[in-house]
């Protein structure tokens, strides 16, 4: 064998077989050097160990994006409590167990066919407007003398139906599904509307829903959906 030691200068391309390259202890047909094999195994094991705690932790952090919030109908009054001309303020709970921080306000009235042009169905005999301003989420206040909803933060103004009159809001006020159940008025999950009052799954404030807006701000996986019953 000694006289067959390959000359590196004339050999050209190295053989991929370690036996051809005269490696001590090389097996016949072996193509991966032990140094390279140890490198890959050690770094691979380190990578697996790092992923073993990183991936569950990341999934843990983003989990809430994919778990749908449960929702139940909340009774807010009887049919006699509401009329077409004035808004009644009702406190409803959107997050359980954290006291006032989980409450929000719905401005409620009876549907008035003379002004409410959107098609009527079983969920809008009573109109429930969210107090969340559609600019950046501050709470709007209904000023009955002006028949306007006014936001204290950046000057958003909405008319009696919750349509944008002035200021930076990008869409009309969000609404809640309502229903009449055994003579009681109940409030369900939130939904968003565009300028034609078409219903969309709830979007955050600041996200327009007209035209291309509904595609720029896709629906989320964790918002409450209308209970089937």
């Amino acid at each position, binding site marked *: 064998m000694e006289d067959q030691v390959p000359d590196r200068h004339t050999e050209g391309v190295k053989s991929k077989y370690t036996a051809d390259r005269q490696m001590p202890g090389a097996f016949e047909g072996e193509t991966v050097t032990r140094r390279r094999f140890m490198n890959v195994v050690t770094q691979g094991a380190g990578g697996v160990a790092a992923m073993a705690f990183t991936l569950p932790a990341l999934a843990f*952090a*983003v989990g*809430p*994006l994919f*778990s749908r*919030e449960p929702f139940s109908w909340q009774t807010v009054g009887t049919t006699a409590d509401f009329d077409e001309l004035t808004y009644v303020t009702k406190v409803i709970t*959107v*997050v359980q*167990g*954290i*006291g006032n*921080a*989980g409450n929000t306000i719905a401005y409620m009235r009876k549907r008035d066919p003379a002004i409410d042009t959107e098609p009527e169905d079983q969920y809008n005999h009573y109109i429930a407007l969210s107090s969340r301003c559609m600019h*950046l*989420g*501050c*709470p709007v206040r209904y000023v009955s003398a002006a028949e306007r909803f006014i936001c204290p*933060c950046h000057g958003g103004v909405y008319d009696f139906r919750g349509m944008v009159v002035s200021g930076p809001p990008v869409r009309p006020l969000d609404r809640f599904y309502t229903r009449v159940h055994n003579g009681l008025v109940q409030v369900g999950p939130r939904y968003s509307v565009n300028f034609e009052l078409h219903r969309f799954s*709830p*979007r*955050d*404030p*600041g*996200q327009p829903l007209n035209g291309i807006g509904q595609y*720029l*701000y*896709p*629906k*989320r996986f*964790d*918002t*409450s959906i209308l209970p089937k019953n």
Partner: protein
Amino acid sequence: MPKFPAPPIPKALLPQPKRPGENGNGTPTPLEAGAEAGITVVDWVDERMQLSGGLRWLLFRKVPKGINWFYTLGSATMFAFLNQAVTGVFLAMYYRPDASGGAYESIRYITDDAFLGQTVRAMHKWGASVMIILIFLHMARVFFFGAYKYPRELTWIIGVTLLILTLAMGFTGYLLPFDQQSYWASIVGININGTGPFIGPYLSDFLRAGPEFGATTLSRFYAIHMMLIPGLIAALIGAHLYLITKLGISAPPWLKAVEEEAPELRETQV
């Protein structure tokens, strides 16, 4: 002032400084060993860790002519961060991230009842504003002095990352008192995140831990504020300081380049 001649005292009577190892066999007396205990301990540690060379590399380095007080803004920002870290750790001993009233109550306890609580909280609260101001002044100094240019671009990029992380600290920390102001400011801030097309809705869901502002929103902000970002900031400050020491600091732009010196001198001065 003329000096009086020394009095003619015989040499044997002159006070002599004590020689080390007065106990005869050349080893230090207990008193001498005690007096040098600090040096002994530092030497013992340094013999094993060999850190003194690195410390000398970090602290005893050459700086260009003409540096001035503007060059201290980076250190000032770092000490503002250290102030935030120390006061923040001790505020965390009293704070409770409880959205159903406990957070506000714990802040009230820190401010009104805890001994020196108002001081420590004020140091953290005002220190946050000081850090933001200092980091912007530091960035302005680097920008207007042209100190971001080759070979210091990576130092600048890390500095911008530190600026963004510092602003994120301000955003997440603002919610923690959980009063009306911090609650609504966070609502607005989260919704601003939501206005980014395509990923905005999911980004705001991530920040809120759900579609609505809930109990875990506060604890999520708290965890980001006191564990995730401070660790990143500390690591990036380390990288920033390493680059500053490795590359040296830049001369102020008004300083003219010095005349070419003799080649044999140039070699030794670099």
